[in-house]
């Protein structure tokens, strides 16, 4: 009963604060639009790698043809196929083109030769682009080479591997959702209890027989209701308006997003309980966000970080969210496939909440 009253009260207060409401409702769409403008379309050339196992003159002419392509840049030359594939897996390049041994000799003898293209299928759109560009470049090469070397055929073989799906364009949906579902709810709720303290409403509130559980859960539920609408809205806009592709189930993405949202709100509540005033609470939530920004795999894949830093990474909710979200969005995994990440998110939520309830003192000092 008391809990329900508190939930209604907090929702009313949230809805009557136009500035906050505006931030909550329009920031996600704006950020999403900015990301799309900045990273989504066109952009620079796609980086690829080349493994030239042949080394003959003709093979270098092919390499030259690739280098002249405006659709990608040759970022690496790898000495072995394994290393070439590893570059794709690590997300350094979108594709590796392997020129097999005997390529030049085969062409000179007018035999049928092979060319292998290893594509990162985590991001299908880019893979297709690279594939088409490779085919075009090979055809250009064919035209020029057939004049010199006579007729021959090049069979382009396509293989795919999963990269760590952390290249620039891939990032934006998961990253935007991560920021929006982490920083915004966290800083929003972080000031909630300290505002009650500053406005002295806390003093009157704790003169009623409410428990700290009532207060903490009341805020969590109220803020969840208001921000969930926001989350659904942002995801829907991402897919419908900005054409973000989702390989897995849209509903699964919702579940993952909801878990991060609850986790962020719980962490925000913990910050709120521990802060003396609104300013401190706000600063703390930004401060808490910095490691997430740096080490959660948000900017650089977490796998590239030093082992010491990876210890930090493993406590960040955003790390688990990004993994789960990307696996579902880009690899088409299901919730069960990424269950481990989700368990951690749930566990952290529970820990933050229990700590907040435990630390909330119903006193005015």
């Amino acid at each position, binding site marked *: 009963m008391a809990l329900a*009253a*508190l939930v209604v009260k907090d929702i009313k207060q949230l809805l*009557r604060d136009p500035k906050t409401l505006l931030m909550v409702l329009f920031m996600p769409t704006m950020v999403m639009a900015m990301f799309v403008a900045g990273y989504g379309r066109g952009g620079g050339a796609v980086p690829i790698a080349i493994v030239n196992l042949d080394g003959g003159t003709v093979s270098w002419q092919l390499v030259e043809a690739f280098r002249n392509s405006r659709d990608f840049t040759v970022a690496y030359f790898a000495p072995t196929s394994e290393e070439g594939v590893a570059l794709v897996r690590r997300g350094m390049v979108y594709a590796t083109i392997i020129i097999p041994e005997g390529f030049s000799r085969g062409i000179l003898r007018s035999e049928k030769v092979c060319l292998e293209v290893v594509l990162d299928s985590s991001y299908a759109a880019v893979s297709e682009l690279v594939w088409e560009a490779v085919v075009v470049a090979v055809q250009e090469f064919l035209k020029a080479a057939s004049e010199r070397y006579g007729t021959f055929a090049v069979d382009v073989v396509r293989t795919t591997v999963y990269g760590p799906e952390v290249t620039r364009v891939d990032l934006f949906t998961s990253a935007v959702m991560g920021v929006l579902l982490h920083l915004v709810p966290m800083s929003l709720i972080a000031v909630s209890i300290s505002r009650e303290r500053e406005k002295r409403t*806390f003093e*009157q509130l704790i*003169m*009623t027989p*409410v428990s700290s559980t009532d207060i903490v859960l009341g805020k969590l539920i109220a803020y969840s209701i208001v921000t969930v609408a926001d989350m659904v809205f942002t995801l829907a806009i991402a897919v419908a308006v900005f054409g973000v592709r989702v390989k897995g189930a849209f509903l699964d993405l919702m579940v993952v997003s909801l878990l991060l949202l609850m986790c962020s709100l719980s962490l925000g509540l913990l910050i709120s309980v521990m802060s003396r005033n609104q300013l401190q609470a706000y600063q703390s939530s930004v401060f808490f966000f910095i490691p997430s920004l740096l080490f959660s795999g948000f900017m650089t894949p977490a796998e590239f970080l030093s082992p010491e830093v990876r210890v930090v990474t493993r406590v960040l909710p955003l790390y688990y969210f990004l993994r789960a979200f990307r696996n579902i969005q880009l690899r088409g995994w299901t919730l069960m496939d990424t269950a481990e990440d989700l368990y951690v998110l749930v566990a952290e939520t529970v820990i933050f909440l229990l700590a907040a309830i435990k630390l909330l003192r119903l006193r005015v000092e």
Partner: protein
Amino acid sequence: MNNELAVEAVNLTKVFGRFKAVDSINLRVEKGTIFGLLGPNGAGKTTTIRMILGLLKPTTGYVRVFGIDVEKRRRDVLKITGYMPQHFSLYEDLTVEENLYLFASLFGIPKGKARERVQELLREFLLVEFKDRLAGKLSGGTRQRLALAVALVHNPRLLVVDEPTAGVDPPLRRYFWDKFRRLKEEGVTVLVTTHYMDEAENCDILVLMNRGRIIAEGSPLEIKRRAFGGDLIDLEVSGDPSWVLRDFVVLEREHLGNGKFKVRVLVEDASEAIAQLTKAFEKGGLRVHRVYPVQVSLEDAFIRLVEGG
């Protein structure tokens, strides 16, 4: 444990860092009284009240409200205690009615009853016309009325009000004191702090605080007597009154001219002493022009107590 006590505070001390805000005070508030905590700003009144309500943890000592230990069973205390803080502490972005409903449900009052109670309070505190207005948009006086209404939403047996009349205009001040008296008639114990000495006269029992300590305690009359050691009487007589007054304590003596003198005399009890003195002067052949008990204000008493002690 005394069943007649609404509040019993024993050896309460609160230390903030190096500052002793409240220094081992004892309070005994009897049921059904208007009990005043009087003192200048910074005397420790609010700190004392907050300790009584369990909003602050005492450094030493303990508090019982109607025999219930505040530290151990605070929730039980809250159910029978209403509190109106010094500063407006309601939700400014909720309306008058919403604030009342919120606190009614936080006290666990069932919906139907809550509706009845809220309507009753809206009428009683002249808030009906403001019921849909946001609390933040109310004028000072209306806010104070709302704050008192909220404090009473669950029909508490003890009402604690911290400086209810600070910055409030005289008609509303009177309104508040009338309310407190009516509550007292209904059996509610009212514990009120104030730094207005004049309105403290309305209390049944007063405790005077200064710098975290209690410097006097009793009814307003008792406190005044204690401050001066008795009642004061002013006399205007023709002729030198010294001889007649040789057995009395004369505090002031002034020659008004034409052999007329004005003297202020300290006596044990004014009503007895006036008759006695008039008789004595007439016996001595001195004409008494005027004789009247001095209306000592609590302020005078307070200043004397602070300076004297």
